[in-house]
């Protein structure tokens, strides 16, 4: 029975992917891509990967979909003809076959699951995924938040010189009594609670800084699109402080560990003292969430623009 479900799910995923790849218009492709992302997050649920399902739905389908649709809205309808299909088709088919063969040829499970589950409680997070992200592989996570920052700096650098210093994205014109404004008033409180809950719950249950940050980013975007609050200018010191607060606290904690290591045997760069690991992880995650939320919202809004 569950096999039948998985087969149907996979067929739907593949179908949506094919539609997204070959749809006649780019708008249709983008919509199919969002549908595809939702189906893929269902597949993650089938694999008991709740953290990944949340991240895929929020970022892979949601934010990436918005990015594509927003860009489409700025584009004139243009003739869209792909190149010759034979070589790409051979490359795609060859790679898919090779990977399929490899999956079947893989040895029996070779993962780190048991090792992680043994070490996770000592690292300050009962959710093993959070333990991996913020303790064992904290260096990855730190670099990843910096990747977000690098992308935003790159996006902002693409503004025209005349628009530099304006708020991110296009200026919004919204009727104050319109539906969007009303919607924008109802949802943010709920969204904020959900976002913070995802972070708080993330140490022991699925959720975490990235999933919570995405929800908060959506709230920020909604508030801005509904015209309820003006986004700060890209040169604003306060905005920039919020953007870097997470990585800064993360790096700062790492540095403190490094300096302490000079006279304290257990301390090291990126090591959290075991007694306080849980509260420190939660603190770092909250700061990261704030920065991730604002960075993601700014990434989706795009570079500052002065014309429609």
């Amino acid at each position, binding site marked *: 029975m569950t096999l039948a479900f998985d087969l149907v799910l996979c067929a739907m995923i593949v179908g949506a992917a094919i539609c997204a790849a070959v749809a006649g218009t*780019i708008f249709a492709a983008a919509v199919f891509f969002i549908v595809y992302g939702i189906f893929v997050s269902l597949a993650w649920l089938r*694999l008991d*990967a709740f953290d990944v399902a949340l991240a895929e739905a929020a970022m892979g389908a949601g934010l990436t979909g918005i*990015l594509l649709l927003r860009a489409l809205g700025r584009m004139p309808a243009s003739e*869209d003809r792909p190149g010759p299909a034979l070589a790409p088709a051979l490359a*795609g088919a060859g790679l898919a076959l090779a990977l399929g063969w490899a*999956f079947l040829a893989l040895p029996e499970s070779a993962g780190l699951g048991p090792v992680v589950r043994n070490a996770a409680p000592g690292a300050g997070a009962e959710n*093993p995924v959070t333990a991996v992200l913020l303790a064992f592989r904290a260096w990855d996570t730190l670099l990843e938040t910096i990747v977000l920052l690098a992308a935003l700096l790159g996006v902002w650098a693409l503004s025209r010189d005349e628009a530099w210093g304006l708020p991110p994205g296009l200026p919004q014109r919204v009727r104050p009594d319109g539906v969007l404004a009303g919607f924008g008033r109802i949802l943010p409180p709920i969204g904020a609670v959900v976002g913070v809950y995802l972070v708080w719950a993330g140490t022991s249950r699925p959720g975490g800084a990235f999933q919570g940050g995405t929800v908060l980013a959506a709230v920020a975007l909604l508030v801005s699109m509904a015209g309820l609050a003006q986004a700060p200018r890209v040169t604003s010191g306060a905005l920039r402080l919020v953007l870097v607060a997470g990585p800064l606290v993360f790096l700062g904690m790492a540095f403190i560990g490094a300096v302490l290591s000079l006279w304290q045997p257990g301390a090291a760069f990126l090591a959290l003292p075991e007694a306080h690991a849980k509260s420190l992880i939660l603190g770092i995650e909250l700061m990261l969430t704030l920065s991730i939320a604002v960075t993601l919202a700014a990434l989706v809004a795009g570079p500052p623009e002065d014309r429609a």
Partner: protein
Amino acid sequence: MNVTVLGLCGALLVGIGVFAFLWQRHLLRRVLAFNVIGSGIFLYLGAAGARGGAADPVPHALIITGIVVALSASALAVALVLAHLHASSATRLPEDEP
């Protein structure tokens, strides 16, 4: 068995994405294809990690990192495509213009 289905599905998605990435010329479609390949790789990795019965949390963490990185790259790519459109009124690379 169920896990194998999802792993093979991931392999197929990579193939579909690679096909679209190489075949399509419109730059937004190539960004989209990049994301299809990415999620296919993640599904492949996640399914491989779930073969032992209990799910392996390390791939989950890697995948979350990967999703964030893919989103960052997509955002920069989309912004580049729009800036390129403003600068030269083109939605594809010069060498791909018909």
